[in-house]
């Protein structure tokens, strides 16, 4: 045979198998396909008969058997040498087949393979057959569309695959440093990196020799080490973001069935559009997948939901989180219903417990559980379906959100669909007689994440630059308003901010929240985020135990769509920060204040954060004082950034006000009615100024119980810009006798409108009040002393109205230029450098 006539060259590395090499060679020579040559690579075999057997075959089949010798370099080196020779010696060979010396191929094998290869698209780099064993009998099915995700889990592409010439000419070779096995897996991963894919080679006729002990059983024992070697060599492929993209492309999680419509949409990200198929086509497809789950995919979750229900979730930024929560619940339950209820005030609230699902607008069902339930007794499918809709099988999720809830039609639709699925149950047996051994396609992503100790990521397709703002709770406090303003600036700058709440079941809907945050997510699913580790504390400050709870794997996974995260005061956030940083996500710690407990003991996030310095790329602080504190604690200077506060809302009012002449002074307190704010002091001040100061108090208790009696009627909290403008515009003075503070927004907001603050000198308050010029500082001390000092200040200003007017003008002038876009400048530049657009 002339070299130009060779269509396929079989490369056979030979080391220590002379008896079996003859069989392998004979099976190559017996191929029905014309133009088949063998390249035997004697890998420095110490048995001389290996070479003899090969040379005998060369004598018997002139021109068809090439025998190469090489110093022993291992299987990969021998294969590479054979490939190089075959490419050079057989210029028209279209494929190179890799045959191990102890395996065999049936006579029609390469005839079928070449026909398939010639018909395949150019990106198909290799064809892989079913793994039918010789010796220890086992026939393993590898049918189905090629899946990258599946390849990361199971090496189902036999080393005995047919390689397309183009892929080898592109330079792809085996890794010669892998000498203990898995060199074939690694080779396929290189193929993926180079843009090639595999293709199933059905009914090929490959015979794999399986013995009690072999190189394979040896490398099976080394699985953990070899798996580590794969990860180290293909970091990008195994990266969580890559796994997320593979899941979306190859194993989309959801089938959404619209009540009353003959359609089913298979989508991974529920916010994306997908072509609708008929229910009949969908039923046929999922039953087919049920018969051979490793070969065909059906979405893990079937969702019954009307467009209005999806829109209601989407409108509040809850869509992805709700789908994620349902998927978590479906781990232990076959059905999860989501009931949407109108919220009595501007808030989001969630709760869940095992219960019946009546009234659910969205129903999530485990597709596999549904198919199994129906297949077990098709005649009783309806009864089975009713059974899973009640406790303890079903989980009821209740969500309170603004607006009228949509129609509750999910349960009825589910019951109808179950009956239709029972009728569509095919009679045919499983489509293959070979052993199904690979991970089921709808389980692939879960396994792939689990191997890296990653829980369940959200079903999102991240676009642009995403930043997660992590907070333990989201009420109406100052920190929430600071973060909201910062999120709005980030959004205007091209980032997409997402709010993650780790502890609370509620999110207060502050004005502008929907515009600033693209999504709202509750992370605490099981376990309490606030649990500190009882065994360990950092100089007495608490360390989170959350990282040891399994639900932290899910919280970590939920944040994987982010490019950056800012953790502000969430203990659970600390526990996740280093894992996020290692996943390539920029981690930022946002510090607002240092606190002390009732006994003066150091407490709060600033102290805990010191234990997690390693986990953060950057920390932002709101004051020079806090910056100095961090430096003193040993926080690296280059990982510290000053991000000063600016007023917490955009004002529409004018700072110009008439001088307070001919009437009583007006003073206001606004904010949380919590112990931190020094309410006892406020009560004493109000009592001592009755008759000559007019008082208003607006706010409510958030953290503790009801506030003490203050002697004036408490107004509800002012939230909108107009309400706040009106309050600051009305008052001449703001009183803030707090026990501790960071940089209160209230002071900045009051100053902007010429309302003069009288505040205790705590935290970094002195950085925003120049005493006697644009405000009044009170020395912090006992309640009586502070109250007396405040009353004295009020008397002084009451007596000198000119001075008060001057201070008012100075405050307004100084705050005129305070804008978030400016205070965040350094931070935005740092973020842009860390995560380029």
């Amino acid at each position, binding site marked *: 045979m*002339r*070299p130009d006539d060779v269509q396929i060259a079989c490369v056979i590395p030979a080391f220590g198998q002379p008896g079996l090499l003859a069989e392998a060679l004979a099976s190559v020579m017996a191929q*029905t396909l014309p133009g088949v040559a063998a*390249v*035997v690579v*004697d890998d*420095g075999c110490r048995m001389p*008969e290996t*070479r*003899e057997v*090969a*040379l*005998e075959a*060369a*004598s018997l089949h*002139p*021109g*068809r*058997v*090439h*025998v*190469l*010798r*090489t*110093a*022993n370099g291992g299987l990969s080196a021998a294969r590479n*040498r054979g490939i190089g*020779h075959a490419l*050079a*010696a057989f210029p028209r060979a279209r494929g190179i087949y890799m045959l191990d010396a102890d395996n065999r191929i*049936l*006579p*029609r094998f390469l*005839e079928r393979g070449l026909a398939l290869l010639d018909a395949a698209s150019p990106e198909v780099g290799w064809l892989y057959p079913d793994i*039918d*064993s010789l010796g220890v*009998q086992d*026939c393993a099915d590898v049918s189905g569309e090629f899946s990258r995700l599946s390849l990361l889990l199971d090496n189902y592409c036999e080393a005995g695959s047919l390689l397309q010439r183009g892929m080898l000419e592109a330079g792809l070779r085996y890794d010669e440093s892998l000498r203990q096995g898995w060199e074939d897996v690694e080779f396929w991963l290189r193929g993926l990196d180079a843009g090639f894919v595999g293709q199933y080679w059905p*009914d*090929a*006729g490959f015979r794999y020799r399986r013995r009690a002990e072999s190189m394979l059983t040896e490398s099976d024992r080394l699985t953990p080490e070899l798996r580590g070697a794969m990860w180290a060599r293909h970091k990008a492929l195994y990266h969580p973001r890559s796994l997320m993209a593979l899941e979306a492309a190859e194993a989309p999680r959801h089938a959404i069935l619209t009540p009353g419509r003959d359609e089913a949409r298979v989508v991974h990200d529920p916010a994306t559009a997908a072509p609708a198929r008929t229910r009949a086509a969908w039923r046929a497809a999922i039953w087919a997948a049920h018969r051979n789950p490793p070969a065909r995919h059906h979405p893990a979750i079937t969702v019954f939901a009307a467009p209005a229900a999806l829109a209601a979730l989407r409108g509040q930024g809850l869509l992805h989180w709700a789908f994620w929560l349902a998927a978590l619940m479906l781990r232990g339950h076959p059905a999860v219903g989501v009931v949407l209820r109108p919220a009595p005030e501007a808030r989001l609230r969630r709760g869940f417990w095992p219960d019946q699902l009546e009234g659910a607008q969205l129903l999530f069902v485990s597709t596999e559980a549904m198919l199994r339930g129906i297949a077990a007794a098709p005649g009783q499918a309806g009864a089975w379906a009713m059974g899973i809709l009640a406790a303890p099988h079903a989980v009821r999720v209740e969500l309170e959100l603004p607006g009228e809830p949509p129609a509750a039609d999910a349960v009825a639709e589910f019951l109808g669909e179950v009956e239709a699925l029972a009728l569509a149950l095919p*009679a*045919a*047996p*499983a*489509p*293959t*007689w070979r052993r199904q051994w690979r991970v089921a396609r709808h389980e692939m992503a879960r396994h792939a994440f689990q191997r890296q100790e990653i829980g369940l990521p959200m079903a999102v397709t991240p676009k642009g630059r995403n930043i997660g703002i992590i907070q333990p709770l989201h009420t109406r406090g100052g920190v929430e308003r600071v973060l909201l303003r910062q999120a709005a600036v980030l959004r205007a700058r091209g980032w997409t901010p997402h709010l993650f709440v780790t502890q609370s079941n509620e999110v207060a809907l502050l004005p502008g929240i929907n515009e600033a945050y693209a999504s709202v997510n509750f992370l605490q699913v099981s376990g309490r985020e606030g649990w500190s580790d009882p065994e360990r504390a950092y100089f007495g400050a608490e360390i989170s135990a959350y990282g040891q709870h399994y639900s932290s794997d899910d919280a970590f996974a939920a944040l994987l769509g982010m490019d950056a995260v800012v953790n502000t005061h969430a203990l659970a956030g600390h526990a996740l920060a280093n894992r996020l940083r290692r996943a390539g996500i920029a981690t930022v710690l946002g510090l607002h204040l240092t606190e002390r407990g009732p006994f003066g003991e150091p407490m709060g996030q600033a102290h805990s954060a010191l234990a997690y310095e390693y986990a953060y790329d950057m920390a932002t602080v709101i004051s020079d004082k806090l910056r100095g504190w961090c430096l003193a604690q040993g926080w690296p200077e280059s990982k510290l950034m000053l991000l000063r506060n600016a007023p917490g809302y955009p004002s529409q009012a004018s700072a110009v006000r008439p001088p307070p002449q001919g009437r009583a002074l007006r003073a206001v307190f606004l904010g949380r009615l919590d112990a931190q704010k020094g309410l006892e002091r406020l009560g004493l001040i109000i009592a001592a100024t009755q008759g000559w100061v007019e008082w208003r108090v607006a706010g409510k208790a958030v953290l503790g119980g009801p506030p003490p009696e203050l002697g004036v009627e408490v107004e509800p909290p002012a939230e909108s810009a107009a309400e706040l403008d009106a309050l600051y515009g009305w008052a001449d003075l703001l009183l803030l006798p707090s026990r501790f503070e960071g940089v209160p927004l209230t002071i900045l907001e009051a100053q902007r409108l010429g309302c003069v603050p009288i505040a205790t000198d705590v935290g970094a308050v002195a950085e925003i009040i120049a005493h006697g010029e644009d405000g009044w500082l009170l020395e912090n001390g006992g309640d009586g002393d502070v109250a007396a000092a405040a009353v004295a200040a009020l008397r002084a200003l009451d007596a000198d109205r000119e001075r008060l007017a001057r201070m008012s003008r100075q405050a307004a002038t100084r705050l005129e230029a305070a804008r978030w876009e400016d205070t965040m400048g350094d931070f935005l530049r740092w973020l842009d450098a860390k995560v380029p657009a």
Partner: protein
Amino acid sequence: MRLLVSDLGGLMASPAALLLDAGMPAPGVGLALWRASPLGPDWLLHPEGAPAQGGVKLAAAPAGVLGVLAAATPVWLAAWPDDPPPVLGDVAALATLLAGRVQALRARNGALRESLVTLRAEHEEGRVAMTRLMQATGQGWPGAPRLVHADTPGPAPALPAGRTRLRRLLPAEIGGVCGIGLHLSRAECGPGSALRLRLLAHESERVLGAWVVPGEALVAGWLALDLPVPAPPWREGAAVEIDIDLMTGDLLALPEGPALRLFRAEGPPRFTRPAHWEGASHGLALPPAGVRLGLPPHVWAGVPRRLTLRPGEHREVVMPALPVLGLDRLLARLRLHGGSAMQAALHCPGSASGWRDFDWQGEVEIALPLPAALPATTALSLSLRQLGSQPCMVEWQGLVGVRAGETAGHR
């Protein structure tokens, strides 16, 4: 050491070659000779007599090299530090080496023969044991087979007249299969029609069961076909190939698919005497479809390849025993020397090509379809008739068999 790409095949596929160092005279021995010539800082191996030019690097000595003919160890041998070929000072040293090789090969051949004898003895014992076992286990009543695959018959179009081939790969393993059912929706056929069904091990295309059912035995409903013994426990998929020869006017309708049932023997062994069994095909590896397959040379024994016919003469040439198992068509190629008014025809039991004319260049290729009911070996006749006025000579140039592919349009 380097080698031209075009020489890769010649040297690497050579089971015995001798390398010559630069300057060594070429010995007159019947071996492939490869000369090492300096090429810049490197060396090149090239066939003796061919010019030296650049090539690819050779990392190790070619496996088939017997030795290097050189006055002293050549410097270029240092490129192959692992197991270098022996250096031979002269032809006498080569003769000594070869004599040693012959001795070693004889000893190895002897050892292989001994192991073959051992294997044959083991095989014979195995055959005896298997026969005993079958006799012993076959004393009980045949066990009831288990249905392992069943199709629901769908719409059934009537088949066209002539040959139809259908093929179906079943989602079942071949091992242990002991019976097949084929659904015929309608059957009104005479003895001229026939149905042949083959049960195949799909991956190897080996026939594990074959049945030929004459037209008059075909009736509507499930056609049950048993195997004499269950299929061996091969780990391959089960496939079914159906050939139908339908006479014009006969009617046979099969569901699309076609609809099949598959039975597997379990428990006690099951030996049967099946109807319509066509034992000759058992174990046959079906040839690839569409490929022209040469027939063994012995079929030409006693068959004249050149025949001279007088004007008006009619001649018949017979091949009495042509092996046609697995073939669907024969193709004969004839050439006419002198004259033009000549016709030729092929026929076998149940099939005839009809008279065919030679083309203007004096050539004709005649195809003969082989009926499904034909036995494994058949007689083939070539008929010639001279219609002209001049004697002329016909040369029977060749005869090949072809296996047909699946009939399109009936899935």
